[in-house]
């Protein structure tokens, strides 16, 4: 075991998430692999979606130990994969998924993360066939001492691809949310349509939200938009609701829930949507 092998804040990709400090004295083992999460993972899972196949994958992280997982996913022509990651618990959940998309393939991901001592859900998507579609949404809710990091890299290698990304999160005092989102549009990837939005809300003084959005566009006939905000609760909305009789705590909870729910895709299975809104509600009640 050599702690120096784990990245700390001096490593650019981990500048907001000091893995070395979070792991501390906990034991870990490293294998071979392309990055530190893959090296920490006990195995590399491989998933291949045959042409036209449709599937929903649900992954849960709810432990209190170091839990690193790595997967390689390939979605062939016109197949559709929906991946849902639900991260709760107070350990060190780490995930890296590398997703390749062929012609007309669709990959939709939704991450719900309450963070851990340090939690990082990292997703790399490469659009390798024309007209592939990516949706990478997520919600993070970081209470005191919790750290959630949603990191993604989306590479449009060929033309006509679509990316939609909406990440929303809240951090309480002593909580830290991190969003790192890179979108690369290669010179050949004409007619790409990519949109990336991240909105973080700081609930109190002492809450932290870090964001590093990056768009690298090497093609000229593309539509790319991005937006990134970090701020507090809308005081005008809060007063509006209180003036209608809603007690302050209830108005706050409703506003925060409304803010977050926007990032949950409409087409998710009702049972999962109910679970997610239930988790958001429970988190808010716990803090009220």
């Amino acid at each position: 075991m050599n702690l120096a092998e784990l990245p700390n804040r001096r490593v650019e990709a981990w500048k907001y998430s000091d893995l070395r400090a979070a792991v501390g004295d906990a034991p870990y083992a490293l294998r071979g692999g392309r990055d530190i999460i893959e090296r920490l993972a006990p195995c590399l899972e491989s998933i291949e979606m045959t042409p036209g196949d449709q599937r929903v994958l649900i992954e849960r992280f709810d432990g209190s130990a170091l839990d690193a997982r790595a997967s390689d996913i390939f979605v062939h022509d016109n197949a559709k994969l929906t991946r849902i990651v639900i991260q709760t618990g107070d350990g060190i959940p780490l995930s890296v998924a590398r997703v390749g998309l062929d012609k007309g393939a669709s990959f939709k991901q939704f991450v719900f993360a309450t963070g851990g001592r340090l939690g990082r859900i990292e997703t790399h998507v490469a659009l390798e066939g024309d007209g592939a579609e990516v949706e990478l949404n997520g919600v993070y809710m970081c209470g005191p001492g919790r750290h959630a990091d949603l990191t993604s890299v989306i590479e449009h290698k060929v033309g006509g691809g679509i990316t939609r990304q909406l990440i929303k999160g809240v951090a309480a005092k002593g909580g830290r949310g991190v969003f790192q989102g890179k979108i690369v549009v290669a010179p050949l990837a004409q007619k790409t349509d990519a949109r990336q939005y991240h909105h973080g809300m700081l609930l109190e003084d002492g809450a932290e939200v870090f964001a590093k959005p990056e768009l690298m566009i090497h093609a000229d006939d593309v539509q790319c938009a991005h937006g990134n905000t970090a701020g507090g609760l809308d005081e005008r909305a809060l007063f509006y609701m209180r003036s209608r009789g809603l007690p302050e705590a209830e108005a706050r909870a409703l506003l925060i829930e409304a803010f977050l729910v926007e990032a949950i895709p409409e087409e998710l299975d009702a049972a999962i949507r109910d679970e997610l809104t239930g988790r958001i509600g429970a988190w808010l009640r716990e803090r009220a």
Partner: protein
Amino acid sequence: MFDVRNLHVVVDGAEIIKGLTLHVPAGETHALMGPNGSGKSTLAYALSGREGYEITQGSATLDGEDLLALTPEERAAKGLFLSFQYPVEIPGLSAIAFLKAAVNAQRKARGLAPMPAPELLKLMRAKAEALKIEEDMLKRPLNVGFSGGEKKRFEALQMAVLEPRFAILDETDSGLDIDALRIVAENVNALRAPTRGMLVITHYQRLLDYIKPDRVHVLARGRIAASGGPELALELEREGYDKYLRAA
């Protein structure tokens, strides 16, 4: 019913309302008119308890009860309602969910059980229909993407469902075309009752053609500069506010 005495309001260190006195008896509708910057909206916000509107002197009571000691939600539960000049957009929260939460929060504060969902829905639908608000709009996020007129109609809907004891309507006519103005006014008039009072804040006489006030007050430079019957509004329309601004 609604009594404001010698009210002074300071916003960002500047005194905007400078000793305002106003009495609206139960069953009456009064109009408050005044030029831009005279303090009309400041008065509305201060009476509703918005943060940052510091009351340095004076009193405001509803049915004898001190409003100024209450939080905005407590004032609402006592029956005070403010129709906003600029209703706030709340993405992610449907209009129907918002109204449901508001109705039941007020009922809870008054010691009543929540209204059963089907009953509440029926009530909302009926009131929405009277305001020519499509049911589809109730499911949309509150005020998001609503036109100015739709927002004002929605304020009127909230008022109709919440049935306040005293309502302050801040520039309800702005953003409304003539048909919408008539519909909103009809619905506001339908709420006039012997036990209810209203204060209608407006720049223009036009709204008062539809909501006929019992009394008209002129606000200039933070004070009531004149009060009179409905004819005062007509005089203002003819002669403007100049004379009051010079005198104030």
